[in-house]
């Protein structure tokens, strides 16, 4: 029971991070898009989604197996509250992110940058699947598929960045894992 309390606390703190950062990342995202546009690039990193990947990977790193899925569900609930208009997309997307990160981290004993990047990529690939439901896959023009590939690659690279950021944060805050383990062992 108390292990669950500590887990919920850590997951909730992590889930609050993307919401809090949203106020900063919104304008930053626009600035980045404008810069990319100025250089003629058709895409810019999905800044808004990067923190979601980072906190999901961090949840798995701090709390162990199953935590990424729980974090994904929590992010889906928050998404449903704050963005009710995109309910079908966001809820499924965030849950799939959690599932993907969990899959990407199967068998990981020691958290390093590569395992976090890989978890981000797998999480990114699964979280993109809801968008594919609406993608015009029946329309047979090469340029449309090219645009779809470019968008999904842009998404995946953003997720890889999120995973890498998670590894940096984790390296500097590994003590949280120890503290959580300590707290739960004392409380149970």
């Amino acid at each position, binding site marked *: 029971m108390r292990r669950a309390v500590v887990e919920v606390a850590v997951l909730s703190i992590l889930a609050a991070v993307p919401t809090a950062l949203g106020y900063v990342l919104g304008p930053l995202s626009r600035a980045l898009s404008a810069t990319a546009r100025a250089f003629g690039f058709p*895409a*810019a990193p999905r800044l808004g989604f990067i923190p979601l990947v980072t906190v999901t990977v961090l949840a798995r790193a701090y709390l162990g197996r199953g935590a990424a899925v729980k974090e994904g569900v929590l992010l889906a609930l928050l998404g449903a509250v704050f963005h009710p208009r995109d309910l079908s997309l966001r809820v499924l997307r965030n849950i799939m992110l959690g599932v993907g990160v969990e899959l990407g981290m199967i068998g990981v004993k020691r958290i390093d940058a*590569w395992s976090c990047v890989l978890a981000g*990529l797998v999480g990114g690939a699964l979280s993109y699947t809801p968008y594919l439901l609406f993608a015009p896959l029946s329309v047979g023009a090469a*340029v*449309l598929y090219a*645009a779809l590939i470019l968008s999904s690659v842009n998404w995946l690279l953003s997720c890889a960045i999120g995973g890498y950021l998670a590894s940096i944060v984790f390296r500097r805050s590994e003590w949280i894992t120890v503290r959580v383990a300590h707290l739960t062992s004392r409380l149970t």
Partner: protein
Amino acid sequence: MRVTRRLIAASALAVLTVAAVTAYLLLQTRAEEWRVEVTVGDCRKVFALPELEKMSTEREVRGAGVLRCVPLVDLVAECGVDLNSTLVHRLVAVGADGYSRSVEEAYLYLSKAYLCLPGEAYPDWGPVRLVVEGLSSKYWVKQLVAVNAQLGSWVLNVRVDGETKRVFTLEEIERLARDVEGIGKAVPLVEILRAIGLSEDNVSLFEFVGADGYRSVFKGGNATRAFVLLINPQDWPRYGPLRSAVVGAPRGTWVRHLVAIEVITKE
């Protein structure tokens, strides 16, 4: 295990980068192949980029400057829809990246919806972007490939302080109507206000909105002189099923193809 993981992650990143560069080059060299599919009910029309370019005219787009755009209503009309008797209730726009947005009560925005062709000005927009003036740019779907317009019968949307309060069907309006001397079969605005729990004393301003975007605004004091006219079907091509009328006001302020009444209440 760690080496394998590193290898997989590094290979995945390399493959993704190559895929992105290839896709970008393909997009740049074969943009004219871009197509937009417009579906209206059972009718499906596909418009290639050169075709859209021919149909486009220059217009000022908020925050983006002057661009070549095609009014969406022109593409819907290509399906032979009679927009004098039916309304587009819902619009669903889909981008090549799978991003999709739906616009409810679309008859309020159809006249302000455009397919804009940014050329090389906005590479992230893709060859075509849906622009809906009056709606947040979240609804402006980039890399537009499909638009689905769902039709429905004629309605009168009554909005109070920017929110839809009630949507009257034509049958409901007919039930409220009575013969008004000098005007014909009409519903007094005060009756409509009463039906949504408002009295003319609460109204600061009211505005009639046509399906073509034409608007006419009046002070609340004129509410007792305002009517919604029911038009005979033979005159629908000219006036639409509903028309507004304010006794004593110039005919130019009477809105044809009436779809909405916007009411601003007193503080």
